[in-house]
């Protein structure tokens, strides 16, 4: 267990700068998730921490020591890959014990470590099988077992659940989280799935184009996204964003519709803004504004409603059953304390700007 410090780490491939500079501090035992769209540099950053990619600039520190020049095996890390990367010609036990075998440990010690890890992950009956005989979820557990046997200071996960079907993914998410609670090892986890990030992380780091957009606890990113990118990335369905300006009576959209607004700072007036409201923060209210229902998608526990005011489309999610159909009129009101305002030019959230 150790803290990890990423100090202004950058990466260039030839002439292309993929990561201009990332600074991040990860506390001992923390579960940090790097999340972002494809190509944002999260996997590259993870691989630089692992030692599978060279570091072009800056320093990576694990447990207080600079590891830039160290081989992966000397960094005291273990990695779980997206495609499991299990050795197909070895049994589960041999896969898990491989690192100890290379280190020259005795057969007894290897068996002891493997049995312990297998016990934690429920793999004791599968020790003599080959990876080809296992299901996807079992293979992923073997990959985790291999990592646990190394008893590292840091666990690194590179999109481990991406190859699993949806149902299995949900189950494995809980298992990984439980594992972390049991072992308390510092974990850095990469995914493109924001739900995984929200449900598992102690801290989420949202990345785009090689830069950190925002880092913080999941609910902070949900409640106070730093900019439009984070606001649309976190939360599903995405936040509704409507362009316009603040007028006397409230927020005036470009199309001329009025949206209600709570107290706001004076710096918000007089410039082009984006009005942000999450679909789940609408309520059905008789004193709300009128919209027309375009599509209703019931999921059983919720109802997704696509509502239209003129040319503006708003996605709403209601936790109750609604008896609406396409074409019906709808009266909705946003929760005023959940309205976000973003500067249109920079994308920055301005709600917390001082007056």
């Amino acid at each position: 267990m150790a803290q990890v410090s990423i100090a202004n780490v950058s990466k260039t491939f030839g002439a292309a700068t993929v990561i201009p500079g990332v600074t991040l501090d990860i506390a001992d035992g923390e579960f940090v998730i790097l999340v972002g769209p494809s190509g944002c540099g999260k996997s590259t950053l993870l691989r630089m921490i692992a030692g599978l990619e060279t570091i072009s600039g800056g320093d990576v520190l694990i447990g207080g020591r600079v590891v830039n020049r160290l081989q992966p095996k000397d960094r005291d890390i273990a990695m779980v890959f997206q495609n499991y990367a299990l050795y197909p010609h070895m049994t589960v036990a041999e896969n898990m014990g491989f690192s100890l075998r290379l280190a020259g440990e005795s057969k007894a010690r290897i068996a002891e470590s493997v049995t312990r890890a297998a016990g934690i992950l429920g793999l004791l009956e599968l020790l003599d099988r080959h990876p080809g005989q296992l299901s996807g979820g079992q293979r992923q557990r073997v990959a985790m077992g291999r990592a646990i046997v190394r008893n590292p200071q840091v666990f690194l996960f590179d999109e481990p659940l991406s190859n699993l079907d949806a149902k299995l993914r949900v189950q494995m998410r809980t298992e990984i989280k439980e594992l972390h609670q049991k072992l308390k090892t510092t974990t850095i986890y990469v995914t493109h799935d924001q739900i995984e990030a929200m449900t598992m992380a102690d801290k989420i780091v949202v990345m785009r184009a090689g830069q950190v957009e925002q880092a913080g606890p999941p609910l902070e990113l949900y409640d106070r996204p730093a900019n439009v990118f984070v606001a649309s990335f976190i939360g599903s369905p995405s936040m509704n964003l409507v362009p316009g300006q603040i007028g006397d009576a409230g927020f005036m959209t470009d199309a001329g519709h009025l949206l209600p607004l709570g107290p706001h700072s004076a710096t918000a007036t007089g410039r082009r803004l984006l009005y942000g409201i999450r679909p789940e923060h609408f309520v059905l209210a008789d004193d709300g504004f009128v919209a027309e229902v375009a599509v209703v998608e019931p999921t059983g526990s919720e109802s997704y409603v696509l509502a239209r005011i003129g040319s503006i489309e708003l996605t709403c999610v209601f936790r109750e059953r609604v008896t609406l159909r396409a074409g019906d009129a709808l009266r909705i009101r946003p929760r005023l304390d959940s309205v976000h305002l973003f500067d249109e030019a920079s994308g920055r959230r301005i709600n917390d700007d001082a007056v």
Partner: protein
Amino acid sequence: MTRDDSEIGSATIRRLGNAGLYAAYAVAVVFALFPIAAVLMLSMKQASEVFNWPPSFFPETLSLQTYIYVLTETTIGRMLWNSIFLTLASTAGCILISAPAAYAFSRMRFRAQKPLLLTLLVYQMISSMVIALPLYRYYEALGLLDSHMGVILIYITVEIPFTVWLLKGFFDAIPPSLDEAARIDGASRIQSFRIIILPLAKPGLAAALIFNVIAGWSQFIIPFILLQRAELLPISIGVLNFAPGQTEGEITIPYLAAASIIAMLPALVMFVILQRFIVQALTGGAVKG
């Protein structure tokens, strides 16, 4: 009623199609096997039957007398041994050099990679005949003429390009994440190569083995140019210079035919043994699990 007709019709067409296909197969097989069958028949004929007109395909009596003579009274044993030695030594040398080279091409990124691979491809296209005479001159200067070592070196050289390309293809099919996992587990490059990559590339190694054995066994121009002493000749040359007896004018064709069949057998046996791997290699079953 109409439906039955069309069903029957299509079944008949299918059957006719199959028959046509098998007929085409038969023609191809006959073309391929006829020369070998003819040699087999020749090897069992008496000297007097060889120049019969009209020519007869089958011998009058099936006799293995020629084979017995060839095996016991001639130096064919020596020649077979030479072929085996040259083939095995060159195969081992070629794979020992090509496997790490292919691994480097597959796993490492370096600027000279593409030009080097293309160069290998171009070298492969150069036929032995083109290099034969200059080779003789160089070897004369180096003192490598008329030696097995010299011949083995050339065999290895001409077989490396294809072997490297072949093995590279199989190594490429193994996911690089396995190398990375091994690296994190603490394996050096050599350990990773030996313990992870090579076992997984077994079909590729078998294919390389087969190619090298057959190429080595069938080499003609190179040993023909470079070897003189009779005791060094491999069987591909030995069969040519075959002289079963002291008597002039003796018709030696049946003995030549028998020797040819014997020369073919080791390669054939090798092929049959490794056939399982060939099929696996051809159908791309490179990585398990």
